[in-house]
């Protein structure tokens, strides 16, 4: 029986795998090398998906027009920088669902869930995972940035949170 959250992968801003953990048996078990390859591949694909945005051109035009109208009306509105295109956020397949959260600093959190999870559910879980990461990894004075995460407290807290979440569903 596979349900709830199946796995978590954290990728640093250079595309290296810094954390991976599986919680359910819904996904194939891969060896470490395959996880490293997967992290690197996903990093590249994420960059491509951000570049492919078909609405980029139109948004830029609208932005220009908006600036033009705002300047003609005399309002001293500072032209806002257009939102950078986001890369892949949610991936769906027949057997699982992948939620990706890209932090401001480029660290990516990949949360694998079963296909029944809704967007909101996964968002809540992702937020909590990020909270745990900030509290128990980033505030750990012995953690070196961009290096594999080996923090016992993070592991423990994450495990208990996910177990609680998976059993409540």
């Amino acid at each position, binding site marked *: 029986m596979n349900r709830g959250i199946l796995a978590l992968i954290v990728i640093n801003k250079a595309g290296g795998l810094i954390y991976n953990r599986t919680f359910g048996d819904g*996904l*194939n078990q*891969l060896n470490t090398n*395959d996880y490293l390859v*997967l992290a690197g*591949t*996903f990093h*590249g*694909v994420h960059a*491509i*998906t*951000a*570049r*492919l*945005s*078909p*609405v*980029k*051109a*139109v948004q830029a*035009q609208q932005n220009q027009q908006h600036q033009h109208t705002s300047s003609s009306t005399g309002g001293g509105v500072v032209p806002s920088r257009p*939102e950078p*295109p*986001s*890369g*892949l*956020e*949610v*991936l*769906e*397949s*027949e*057997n*699982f669902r992948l939620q990706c959260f890209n932090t401001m600093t480029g660290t990516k959190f990949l949360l*694998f869930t079963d296909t029944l999870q809704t967007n909101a559910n996964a968002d809540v879980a992702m937020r909590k995972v990020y909270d745990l990461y900030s509290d128990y990894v980033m505030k750990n004075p012995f953690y070196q940035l961009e290096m594999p995460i080996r923090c016992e407290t993070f592991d423990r807290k994450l495990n208990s949170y996910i177990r609680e979440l998976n059993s409540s569903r």
Partner: protein
Amino acid sequence: MPIQVYSLYIFDRHTQCVYSKLWHAAAAHQQQHYPAPPSSSHNAHPPPPSSSSSSSQQHHQLSTSQHQQQLPPASQHQATSSLTNGSNAAAAAAAAVAAANARGTVNSGSGGNYHMTSARAADDAKLIFGAVFSLRNMVRKLGGDDDAFISYRTGQYKLHYYETPTNLRFAMLTEPGALSMRNVLHQIYINLWVEYVVKNPLAPTEHKGGEGVRNEMFEMGLDKFIRGLM
């Protein structure tokens, strides 16, 4: 519920883009399909500039490769022949280089906007194929061989994917809020591709050289079908 469809790409089993079409407002001025330029294995026969199926960038690549191919024989000739012949060969080589350069600049210059947009469409097709191919392999590795990649969503768009058992791949870009379009892609395959392209005795089974599908019935049916969704 109307859905904004941005574009559709079809790739054959040789990873070549055989059909692509854009419905997006920004691309309204180029309502024509852009087959991908031939892959490097077909570069031996560069298409004439008027065919305009390949990008200006590729013309550059072509001209530089010709340039490189032509230089070694010329220099050999120069080494073995007498001084006068050598200067002739050098002049010939220089002329070849100049011609190659001129060809590159002429094509990129005369191509203008059309070449730029077609180059961009071809690049996009390649990028989409790369992304989709990697994600599909990733999904199959993690979810097992029976798993299938369905779609991904970014903040700006959603890509729907459908693959037939014969490795024909459909990728459709829509607005991010769209529901699953897998059945739509399946319908396109069954009702349009099979009916008008596969059952057409004159349609080539392989699309070498980036010719792509130029089938009026298919294109009309597809356009009608997609516009019905929007």
